[in-house]
C-alpha cells in the first residue's frame, strides 16, 4: 500500500513519519501527476488558505476530486476545511478554494482566537483507550449531511471527526501525538476501498 501526503505546505512530514512507523510506503505530493500510483491521500494541517491557493496555482483541484472519487482521502484540520462542501460565514475565509468533496459544513476560527487551541482526550468507538488529541486553531465541524456521519465528539457534544465512505476528516492532529491509531483506522479504510 502506498499513501501520499499533500506536501504543498503544513505538517506533512509528521504524517509521513507516522505512516512509515506503521510500515507503509509513502510519497510527498507536490504536483498532480504524483497522485498516479497512490492508494490513499492525506491532506495535512497547515494554513488552509495557503494550501488552497497553491493547489489552485498548480492545477490540483480536478485531479484531487478525481482521486477522491476512487480512493481514500483524509483531511486533518486545514485538510478538513479543504475537503468540505461548505464553509460557514461566522468565521473568516474569504476567497478560499474548497475541494467540495465531503458533505460537511465547517467554520474557521469558530472557537475564538484565544481558545481555538487545546488538548482533549477523545472517546472513540472501537479504541480501547481514550485518544489524546491536540487542537490547533481548530476549525469547527458544524454539520454532517447526507451520507457523512460524525464519528467522534467532545464531551460537550462538539463534533471533531466525520466519515463518509472512504473519506475521513478530523479537526485535530493525530500526527502530533505519536499515537498511530487514527492512521491505522485510515489505512483500514483505504484497504476496504481497494477490495
Amino acid at each position, binding site marked *: 500500500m502506498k499513501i501520499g501526503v499533500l506536501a504543498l*505546505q503544513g505538517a506533512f512530514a509528521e504524517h509521513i513519519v507516522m505512516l512509515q512507523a506503521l510500515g507503509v510506503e509513502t510519497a510527498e505530493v507536490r504536483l498532480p501527476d504524483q497522485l498516479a500510483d497512490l492508494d490513499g491521500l492525506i491532506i495535512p494541517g497547515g*494554513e488552509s*488558505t495557503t494550501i488552497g491557493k497553491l493547489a489552485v496555482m498548480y492545477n490540483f483541484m480536478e485531479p484531487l476530486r478525481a482521486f477522491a472519487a476512487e480512493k481514500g482521502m483524509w483531511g486533518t484540520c486545514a485538510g478538513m476545511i479543504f475537503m468540505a462542501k461548505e464553509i460557514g460565514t461566522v468565521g473568516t475565509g474569504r476567497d*478560499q478554494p474548497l475541494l467540495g468533496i465531503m458533505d460537511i459544513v465547517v467554520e474557521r476560527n469558530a472557537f475564538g482566537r484565544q481558545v481555538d487551541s*487545546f*488538548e*482533549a482526550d477523545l472517546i472513540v468507538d472501537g479504541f480501547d483507550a481514550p485518544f489524546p488529541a491536540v487542537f490547533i486553531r481548530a476549525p469547527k465541524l458544524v454539520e454532517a449531511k447526507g451520507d457523512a456521519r460524525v464519528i467522534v465528539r467532545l464531551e*460537550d457534544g462538539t463534533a471533531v471527526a466525520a466519515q463518509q465512505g472512504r473519506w475521513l476528516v478530523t479537526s485535530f492532529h493525530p500526527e*502530533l501525538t505519536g499515537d498511530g491509531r487514527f492512521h491505522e483506522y485510515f489505512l483500514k479504510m483505504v484497504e476496504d476501498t481497494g477490495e
Partner: protein
Amino acid sequence: MNNEKGTSSFKIKAGLAQMLKGGVIMDVVNAEQAVIAEKAGAVAVMALERVPADIRADGGVARMSDPGMIKEIIASVSIPVMAKARIGHFVEAQILEALGVDYIDESEVLTPADEYYHIDKHAFDVPFVCGCRNLGEALRRIGEGAAMIRTKGEAGTGDVVQAVYHARTVLGDIRRLQGMPDAELMTYAKNIGAPYALVKEVRDNGRLPVVNFAAGGIATPADAALMMQLGVDGIFVGSGIFKSGNPAERAVAIVKAATHYNNPAILAEISEGLGEAMVGINVSSLPESERLETRGW
C-alpha cells in the same frame, strides 16, 4: 479542555508553529500589504511599523509597533498575525498578547530593552519565536519557552550570506551532536551554554524540539529554496518583498519556491521577470556596531 489563562501547554504552542511549516511569513506595515501577503499565500504576516531595511536607514531606537496598526492588520486577514517585542521587554509582550496577536517575535531587529535577560516566555499563553545563530542560542531560547526558532541572518540587508551561515551552523551543530556519546553531553551542554535536557533531546531526535525557520536577508525565490534545501522548516521574508519592484508577484514566487524548493525547473519558471529585487547591502560592508545579529545573549 483546558483554556484558562496560563495553561496553554508547550505542545500546543509548538504545534501552532508546526502548522506554518513549508510556508512563508511576510513583514507588512499596513492592512493593504497584509492583504497582498495573504492573497499570495503567506502562512502568516509580521505586523510592524517599519521593515528592517527602514529601521536600519532611520536609526534611533526601534520599539514595538502602534497597537492601532497591529489591530488593523489583525482585522484585515484570516491568517495568523505576528508582532515584534524588544528583547527582554516583557511589558511590550504583555501588550501584544492582550491585542490578540498569534505569535510574538522577541526580535533583535528592535533595540534590546535588557542586555542580560530575555523574556520568560513560559509565563505567556501566546507562543514566541526567537532568533538564534547557533545551537546553544537556540536551546537557551527554547529553555526560556520559545515555541519556534528562526535563524537570525542579518535583517534588512537583502544579503542571504548570514542566513546561510546561521542555518549551516545550527544544523551542523545538530549533526555533530548526534554522534556524541552520553559521557560527553554535560560538558558539551556547558560549553554551548544550553540546558542539558534539551541537548540530550536534540541528540536523541536529531532535530530541534521546535520548528526552525530561516530569516534575515532572503530576497529571491532562489534564496528561499536555498534555505529550504539547507534544511530549515520555512521562511521569513522581511524587507525583501515590499522593498522590491513588484511585491505581489515576488510574494507569490517566494511562496511557490518554499513548496517546490527541490524542483529547479519550477524555480526557473517562477524566478523569471520579477523585476527589481530590493537593492540590498553587503553584510561584509557593515561595521560590527550596525549588525543586528549580535543582539541577544
